[in-house]
């Protein structure tokens, strides 16, 4: 699974996710990636989120919308929101994976509970950051 979140110079956010799913999937199995609110969500009132991991858990928690709701309705920071959902809620139901997120003010965040996540971050006036391992 791959994904990108972005905020432009006008403060509009957007999120996109794309995947091949899981190896040897059967019976028309679909994970969270194409489900708005689970693998992908974006609102200028909160943030844009893209997720990756074992999709069934991200569907059950509606991960992307949960992160946006924490930011919009509880006023927590973007990093606190992604950590609460991934490190606490997702881990509590034995889910595995990660998310990336960006806010309308240009704040970036990511969180994952697996041993690695291919990730990159770039922003106006900031250097490119690329990561793989925890």
């Amino acid at each position, binding site marked *: *699974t*791959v*994904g*990108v*979140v*972005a*905020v*432009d*110079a*006008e403060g*509009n*956010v*957007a*999120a*996109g*996710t*794309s*995947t*091949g*799913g*899981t*190896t*040897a*999937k*059967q019976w*028309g199995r*679909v994970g969270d*990636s*194409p*489900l*708005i609110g689970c693998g*992908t*969500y*974006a609102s200028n009132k909160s943030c844009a989120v*893209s997720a*990756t*991991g074992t999709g069934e858990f991200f569907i059950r928690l509606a991960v992307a919308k949960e992160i946006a709701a924490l930011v919009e309705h509880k006023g927590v920071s973007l990093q606190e929101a992604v950590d609460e959902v991934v490190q606490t809620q997702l881990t509590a139901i034995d889910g*595995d*994976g*990660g998310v990336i*997120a*960006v806010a309308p*003010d*240009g704040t970036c*965040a990511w969180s994952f509970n*697996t*041993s*690695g*996540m*291919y*990730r*990159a*971050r*770039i*922003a*106006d*006036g900031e250097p*490119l950051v*690329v990561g*793989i391992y925890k």
Partner: protein
Amino acid sequence: SKWALVAHGGAGVIDRSDLKPEQEQAYRDAMARVAETGAAVLRDGGSAMDAVVAAVRVLEDEPLFNAGRGAVFTAEGRNELDASIMDGRSLDAGAVAGVTRTRNPITLARAVMEQSPHVFLVGEGADGFAQTRDDVAQVEPSYFFTERRWLSLERELKEMGLPIPERPERAGHDDLAALAHDEGKRG
């Protein structure tokens, strides 16, 4: 506002011992290329939507990642792709699942959002909609084939005690995909 972009290429079992130096470098170079592609759109005053599509297309075209070319296989030996996109300004959204002939599923998801009254199209219907869109490139299913993912499928099916499907015709070999690490996406 300050423009910014974050990208991921998948999460999973990715330990330092898993990746050979040339594999790690290939992944780092690819992620840098993805970020720079999106940043170029934003630097030019482009929209977040355009930046997301431009960057995701690079990830879909890159056989190292499980999306587009280099996607994993179903138990029947097919590539069935999913994608979604959402615009934070308007809360418009588009998504597809189980598509088999669209080179860049993120482009199709955006077409669903902008050129249909729906949010989510799946399977043959989504493939049929794609064929009516001039701006959504269609390819033969064998375009998505990579050797590394096929070998992962065979290994997985053996473990599941399921039959190995016929190897797709015109299935090419792809050295770059030989660098693809299987981060453990299991059916």
